[in-house]
């Protein structure tokens, strides 16, 4: 007997490679989206700071706009986007 696979459709779920499950600002899972967004993933990406903490981009931007100093809300270090 010979079995030939012609096509294989698999099912997978995607997730962010991050050191936490939830966004520290909105407390939503990273794999979900921030409260202002409707669609997860490309439309609501994560960003990492130089301090290695990461957030939904919309969350951290909103945070930085509302603060006099640009600090990471988790560790109070100066916030710098880590473009890795």
């Amino acid at each position, binding site marked *: 007997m010979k079995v030939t696979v012609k096509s*294989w459709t698999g099912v*997978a*779920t995607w997730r962010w490679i991050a050191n936490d499950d939830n966004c520290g600002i909105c407390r939503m899972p990273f794999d979900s989206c921030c409260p202002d967004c409707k669609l997860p993933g490309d439309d609501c990406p994560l960003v990492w700071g130089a301090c290695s903490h990461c957030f939904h981009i919309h969350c951290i931007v909103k945070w930085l706009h509302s603060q006099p100093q640009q600090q990471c809300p988790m560790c109070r270090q100066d916030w710098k986007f880590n473009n890795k």
Partner: protein
Amino acid sequence: MASKREELEIYWNKINYAYPILNDTLFTDCSDAEYEDIQQIIVGLGVQIKIRDLILVHTEKYFRQHVASSFWSKFIKTDEEVKGFQLFKSAVNDLYEAMASFSPMITRLTILNNSCCDNKPIYGERDVMSGIKQLLRATLLSQLPLDFQVIINHFYKVSFNVFDNAEYENSDMGEDVMCSGCWNEYSDCNCSYIVKVFHDTNRKLVELTLLERLTGQVLTNFIQQRIELHIQKLCTGTFDVSHISFLENWLDTTVMSWLTRIYCAGSSKPHRVDKDIQNAVSKFKQKLSYSLYHIYTKLRIDQLFNIIIVYPDSQPAVDDIKLCLDKTDLRATLCKKLQNALETRLLHPGVNTPDILTAYISAIRALRHLDPSGVILETVTKPVRNYLRNREDTVRSVVSSLTEEGAGSELAEELAKFAAETDDELEKEEDWDNWMPDPKDADPKVNGNDRKANDIISMLVNVYGSKELFVNEYRTLLADRLLAQSVINTEKEIRYLELLKLRFGESQLHFCEVMLKDVSDSKRINALIQQDKNFESLNNKFSSNAMILSAQFWPPFKDESLELPDEIKQHFEAYTKSYEALKGNRTLNWKPHLGNVNIEIEIGEKKLDLTVSPFNATLIMHFQTKPEWSLEELHQIMKVPLIILRRKITYWQSLGIISEKSTDNYVLVEGSDGNKSSCSTNQVQEMICEDEESESVMASAHDQREGELQVFWSYIVGMLTNLDSLPLERIHQMLKMFASQAPGTECSLQELRQFLDTKVRTHQLVLQAGMYKLPKT
């Protein structure tokens, strides 16, 4: 003195001569001229009042002893209609003749009465004639026999038959030998005789003013019977024609003209002059048309269940009921009867849920048409709603019929209709001119507008009282559909989703939107990854695709383990690498048991083209390397529980590719063995089989709920560590107090008990004398 006495004797004889009634006879030769003399004598004597009263007393006696008894003696109880007809006729004739023989006496009495000048009414009447008639009537009715109606009934039945027949004469001039009017052979049909006698008798009765009193009741009963018969003949089985105007017409023409003829002795038009007759006839008509509506509505109410089932076709019947319901007092009967019918015919375990739903939907439609205020609908369908709430598959049935396409999915049409209708709603609200108060049986606590606003889908959704359940069920069904189909009609799904969004609101269906976007995104990512250089070499062997899902937005999957063949695993790893390269900082978690595989199996000459689940594909691929496997070995290599393995391997057994050699030992049915099987002709056979499994890959609602309750577990453990042991009610209260922010917190006492019981079963809790405790470690 003696001469005076003799004189008086002569006078008395003369008076007796003029009024033979004083000797209880009627016959006299007294002429008008002679009577004038006698009248003078009476006046001369001044005894006119005494004589008149004496005559009246004797007349009464005569009526009682002769006329009445001979009239009633004809009323013998008989079953023969024709005999009854004859008897009644002769009785009336005799009575009429008897009255006629009184007429000379009455003329004389009138003259006598006029000379009395005391204005005393005679039996309550002004003139002698009507007084005597009144007397006759009173005497007759005082001796009314028990069964007098039988004879009268026969009489009218026979004549109505003839009459009814005359109306339709043209239509049934068939080859009948019998005249359908009088049931005689045509050769000696005596319809015309009957009609003549009938009119004659009625005329006499009218003249004697006995018609109404004697025959009124019989006539009413009789006509009602005829109406009932006629309606039953006309209206059984057909709901697609409106009968009411036809019936009204029938009443107006056939019945009423017959009735008018009875009253007017033969002519079909009432004399314009005679107010009494007109009044009597129109009163009769009111009575009859009420009973017509009543009978018709009752009949229709008995058929209402069937009418509802075929509803849009039976609209004329519903219209009829609607019209009649205003004219009769049958609302309560309708509700009760229909409710009973629904309960006996619908609400039992023998009926499928989709059938109940179909009936419920057409009931909503039909009853809404019948009673726009929605009160009847609410009352009648209450048991249906209660019953549907107890059926497990209600939600699933509703949701799947919402999204089904093609005939029979009325809900899908309804959904599309709703989208079109939403714009007009606002205008309708301000329609003051057509405002109607709620019917009297409406529940005053419910706002009338709410009742009216509910359309079919919201009525179905309201069976449960929450949209959430429906949306969740839809999500699960959608997930199943998306994963099961290899080719997904995204456009169609999006269209339905848009329709559902109009109904359930954007926020509720947001998850489904993401799911659909995942599907279309996956297509794009697949296309991108296929172009990847690293992946290309692998893909030469077979094409691999992936559905990449946003886990947070899909309903939870059933957790099943499956170890894929290395070859496939490599493929997926490469795919993951490409994905990671494509989307920075993101990776994939594979669900190996989900998806579908297209494989081709060659056994000897035979070729099979199959679409199977990954499990079945893996299994058969293992048999490719080694033709014989024990269940244990398969379990080792595939990491699938034995029970599931044993169950799923039957798929290949049913195809005749694998057979069970001995218990739990499976062997491949190879070439020569395969030739023995039924489909082993030498021709190459292409078989396309679908994987038979169609069970949901999603976790059931029950499992999902269990997962939600799991949130409480940490609270409960904390509670019990601190307070040692607690009863159920306390735990429930404390949870309400402390854990009310957690998602899915509406946890009833019962649910909590079930949840704790499962924990007791898995030895994570101990139940002692109604108190829950943590087990001692």
